[in-house]
């Protein structure tokens, strides 16, 4: 922001950033498709879904400077919301047996992409209403309120059996989400996030992040732009949830809780929350590293069971090893490189 680049047109670096990120996503998708290994396709598909969620989180956190621990609640709303619309009445009888047949919702079936959007819109409606209250809070109070929100939505999802089957697992969701569909949604999310960042609203939001009083003196209504960023952000989170639901095909409210929250926050912080590039890089880096760790963890546990290799010297079954490494990685990054891998800059920034 500080570097006043010479004559080069202002939009050029942004366009190049967008193209590089999209090319990266496309390359990863094509390479994965070419390798065709089932496990790897699965890993990369989940990576893209998480990328959608992390980019969604970045839209709000990066531009407003406020930390939200509540986005996974909207992922959950998007997941349940999308299956209410994507399933046929017969499928609903199996997956959501507690939903009354006479309900309009029970009768309605939408094509998959529309059902995903419907899930996102539902997240937008819920988030939009709560957001009116939330955007009045600052700093730590805001974060705590979003954390409370995560717990409220979790506890409501556990209790509202007609809509979610309660704590029991919903299963039999058609696996509509493929590697290519999520790659496309990830590209769309990146484009939307980049456009929002450079839009008038995004600029005002970033101005309010740096100095709310100064921004207000220039006529920026901080609460309003914060709400707009929040609304777009929870919509993307809802879309991510819908994509996830139609990939995983069996899930319960437990999926939309603390460990998922930790994962997407970790991805964003490690990548660098101030830039869309950070969200993309963070999602990819963390997803691939944790897969490697999980794989190692599995191997060591097998070795330990067989009494062979390095694994036999480990005194206990390895569980949660991945989380430990991720947590240490976050702490070290925050100490040595608080702005994340990308340093909070886009791949190509002005003047560079």
């Amino acid at each position, binding site marked *: 922001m500080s570097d006043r680049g010479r004559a080069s047109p202002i939009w050029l670096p942004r366009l190049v950033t967008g193209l590089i990120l999209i090319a990266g996503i496309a390359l990863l998708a094509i390479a994965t498709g070419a390798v065709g290994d089932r496990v790897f396709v699965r890993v990369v598909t989940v990576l893209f879904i998480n990328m959608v969620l992390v980019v969604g989180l970045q839209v709000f956190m990066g531009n407003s400077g406020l930390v939200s621990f509540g986005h996974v609640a909207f992922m959950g709303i998007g997941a349940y919301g999308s299956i209410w619309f994507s399933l046929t009445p017969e499928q609903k009888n199996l997956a959501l047996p507690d939903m009354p047949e006479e309900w309009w919702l029970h009768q309605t079936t939408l094509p998959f992409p529309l059902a995903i959007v419907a899930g996102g819109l539902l997240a937008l409606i819920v988030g939009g209403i709560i957001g009116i209250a939330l955007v009045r809070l600052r700093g730590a109070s805001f*974060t705590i309120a979003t954390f409370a929100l995560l717990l409220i939505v979790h506890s409501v999802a556990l209790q509202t059996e007609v809509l979610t089957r309660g704590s029991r697992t919903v299963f039999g969701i058609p696996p509509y989400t493929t590697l290519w569909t999520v790659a496309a949604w990830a590209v769309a999310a990146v484009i939307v996030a980049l456009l929002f960042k450079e839009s008038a609203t995004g600029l005002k939001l970033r101005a309010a992040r740096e100095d709310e009083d100064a921004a207000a003196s220039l006529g920026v209504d901080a609460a309003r732009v914060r709400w707009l960023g929040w609304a777009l952000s929870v919509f993307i989170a809802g879309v991510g949830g819908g994509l996830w639901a139609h990939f995983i095909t069996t899930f319960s409210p437990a999926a939309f809780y603390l460990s998922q929250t930790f994962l997407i926050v970790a991805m964003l912080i490690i990548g660098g929350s101030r830039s869309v590039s950070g969200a993309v890089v963070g999602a990819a880096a963390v997803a691939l590293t944790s897969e490697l760790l999980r794989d190692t963890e599995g191997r060591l546990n097998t070795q330990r069971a067989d009494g062979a290799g390095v694994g036999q010297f480990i005194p206990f079954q390895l569980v949660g090893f991945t989380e430990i490494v991720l947590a240490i990685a976050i702490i070290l990054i925050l100490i040595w490189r608080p702005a994340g891998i990308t340093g909070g800059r886009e791949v190509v920034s002005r003047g560079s």
Partner: protein
Amino acid sequence: MTDFSDGIQFLISSLSIGGLYALMALGLVIVYGILRLVNFAYGELIMIAGYSLLLLGDTPLPWLGVAILSVIAAAIAGLLMERVAFRPVRDSSPTTMLITSFAVSTLLQSVALLTISPRPRPVRLPEFFVQSLTVGDVRIRVVDLIALAVTIVALVALTIFLRRSLIGIALRAAADDFTMTRLLGVRANLVIAAAFAISGALAGIVALFWIGRSSLVEPAVGLQPVLIAFIASVVGGLDSLRGAVLGGYVLGFLTIGLQTWLPRELLDYRDAVTFGIVIVILLVRPQGLLGGAAGGGR
């Protein structure tokens, strides 16, 4: 049952749980006041005290000794946490510190999961934790009375410490204006370490009674208390020690009140209703009941 005995029972339950909530909130606010750090890993201090109860419970030590050692263990864990994780990011933004604490919390939980057990483990508790007294119509659990007494003693002791001792005065001064306090020659490391030690000790006391209610300890045992502490301190005002105590008692009365008077079919939604009310309170007073300029004293 008369209305009167119902009332007494309600009052004792609310005061006992409210006192516990107040201690939880205080442990959070005493650190926040100085560092502007919302410590998500506060719950893991409770967890550490809980596992100390578990591990020391197998030794021939009397229970009171085990309890005191567990409180000390939590205080030491608080000190270590500050030294290892928070001191290096102390000068960063509050956001950085917040996320650091979130990572510390996950780290400690995962370590407990890995090295102890993912399953809840029973903790040895003394007899009086399960006994109850009957006075007239009123049935009171002994542990509620003890919690009531211990929280009041802890609150009074902390007040005297903060008002009379040199470190206590330095702590309050630092909470008011840390830069100015440092300019006046108070060592930052000492004040912050003291705050974390107190925070850990409070977590330890909380753990005795919180884990005493279920007699189980598991890696996620600190989640519920830390959440309550967040809510109570946000309600009271994150930067006010008095607010934390008030917020704790408000939340205590709210919890027991909803449990008593909420219709059965809505009881499952009690937590959602509680947090909903909290969001409404924040709408009216975003700085909390006693927070910000309007709150005055600390």
